[in-house]
């Protein structure tokens, strides 16, 4: 409990003026433009879009600038912005199988139809700081090769043809889709709500949980069946137009984890799956999400629920960094009255203790 206090208005105004000045920093240094943030800090922008749960590069860049690079603050700003706009409806589900691929790798099959495509990746870099980037640099033109029209089917689709992996759960096209921004969360939650929660979830939280499953806390033997990044087209069934209108394309990262088997007396064993999907090029997020998605399926797959990553109430209640930061940071707000009552109680307890102490000593003697 905290109570409203008045009296700090002038100090608050001046603190915000100071913040604006500090944000700008040394005036001799050129000011950042949103284009610079969007182009050169692109992965930070992707993270703010994913966890802010709003696909808009320019807004995410603005939020990063306003938040002085504090990505959780930026995510908070983006979430607050989305509450100011009406929702026109929901898109048709995107088809990641038809993605215009910019990166696509599989750690389960060397030769996949369409090939392994590294794209722009940190993988295989030496992780040595590059002094050249300290100055201005003009990198070489990217290499070029003949573009291929070969289809790039999802690795899970290939495994499915042989019945080696479980099918994805299906639903009728007009079946309602759970939306945690509209209805309060109840447990147990269905897979649609879990995936929505994980898609908005803090990357660090999911990374730690995913890591914990690998270290034995809810082990489920994952392979990165496929990770792909690229652009997908978005269609929206527009009521006024009377048909599905194209809205443009968005960049997505998808991760298909392939996990150990499940079978029964009547069903042959087959691989199980965990799924991750995130805005932009967000590979660590998509992989962590897929690990946790699979861990959260423990009870559905008849596994013991013993580890934190398998506990959906624990995971889903603590995954949102805007909620988490709100509750942690509210401790900064005045709690003067609460603290006064605790202080009063403590003084009384200490007085009682002092009073009882001599008697206790006598009794001991």
């Amino acid at each position, binding site marked *: 409990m905290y109570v409203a206090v008045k009296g700090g208005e002038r100090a608050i105004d001046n603190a915000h003026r100071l913040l604006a000045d500090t944000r700008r920093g040394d005036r001799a240094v050129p000011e950042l433009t949103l284009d610079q943030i969007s182009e050169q800090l692109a992965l930070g922008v992707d993270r703010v879009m994913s966890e802010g749960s709003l696909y808009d590069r320019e807004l995410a860049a603005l939020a990063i600038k306003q938040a002085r690079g504090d990505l959780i603050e930026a995510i908070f700003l983006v979430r607050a912005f989305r509450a100011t706009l009406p929702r026109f409806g929901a*898109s048709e589900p*995107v088809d990641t199988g038809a993605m215009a691929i910019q990166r696509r790798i599989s750690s389960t099959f060397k030769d996949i139809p369409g090939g392994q495509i590294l794209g722009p990746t940190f993988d295989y870099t030496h992780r040595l700081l590059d002094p050249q980037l300290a100055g201005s640099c003009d990198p070489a033109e990217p290499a070029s090769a003949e573009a291929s029209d070969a289809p790039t089917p999802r690795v899970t689709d290939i495994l499915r043809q042989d019945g080696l992996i479980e099918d994805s759960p299906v639903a009728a096209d007009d079946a309602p889709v759970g939306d945690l921004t509209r209805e309060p969360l109840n447990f147990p939650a269905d897979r*649609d709500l879990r995936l929505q929660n994980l*898609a908005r979830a803090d990357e660090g939280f999911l990374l730690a949980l995913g890591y914990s499953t690998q270290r034995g806390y809810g082990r489920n033997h994952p392979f990165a069946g496929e990770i792909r990044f690229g652009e997908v087209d978005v269609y929206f069934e527009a009521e006024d137009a009377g048909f599905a209108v*194209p*809205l443009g394309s968005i960049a997505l990262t998808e991760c298909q984890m392939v996990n150990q088997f499940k079978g029964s007396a009547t069903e042959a064993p087959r691989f199980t799956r965990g799924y991750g999907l995130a805005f932009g090029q967000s590979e660590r997020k998509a992989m962590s999400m897929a690990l946790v998605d699979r861990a959260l399926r423990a009870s559905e797959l008849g596994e013991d629920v013993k580890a934190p990553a398998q506990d959906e109430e624990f995971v889903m209640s603590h995954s949102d960094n805007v909620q988490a930061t709100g509750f942690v940071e509210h401790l900064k707000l005045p709690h003067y009255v609460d603290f006064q009552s605790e202080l009063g109680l403590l003084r009384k307890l200490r007085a009682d203790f002092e009073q009882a102490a001599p008697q206790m000593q006598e009794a001991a003697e």
Partner: protein
Amino acid sequence: MKTVQAESSDQAAKLPVARRQAAMAVLAACEAAAIDARLGDLGALPAFTMLREPEQGLVMLRGRVGGDGAAFNLGEATVSRAALRLASGEVGFGYTLGRDRTKARLIALCDALLQSAGHAAAIETQVIAPLRAELEARRLEKARQTAATKVDFYTLVRGEG
């Protein structure tokens, strides 16, 4: 809204929806300034009245469990939209990702003109086609750069023979 819908389905009967979608897909991928410049080259355009003033909103983007299963809500995107009617009656709709209301209006105008017998050819050949060519060139350049990062595995033969 009802009148708009009735008229649009009437219009849709005249021009295949697929052609309108194809044009909209090109326009949605372009900058407003690029569309405006192409439209400007066409000279005088017919008058129109706005049926829906350009507005910003959100669309919830959906994915599928496992990529191919039941739908789930991934997160929202900003979207702008507009609707207008030409003096000759054709109704056009403009939808695009982002917050550019001018772009939504320009797309709606192109959609309406595409349905008008007098303007369809000019829109198709002088606006859509060149913009599509630019997009295709950019897409191809990106695809070529991506293709250069494709791994060519080769098998090492052990020298035992």
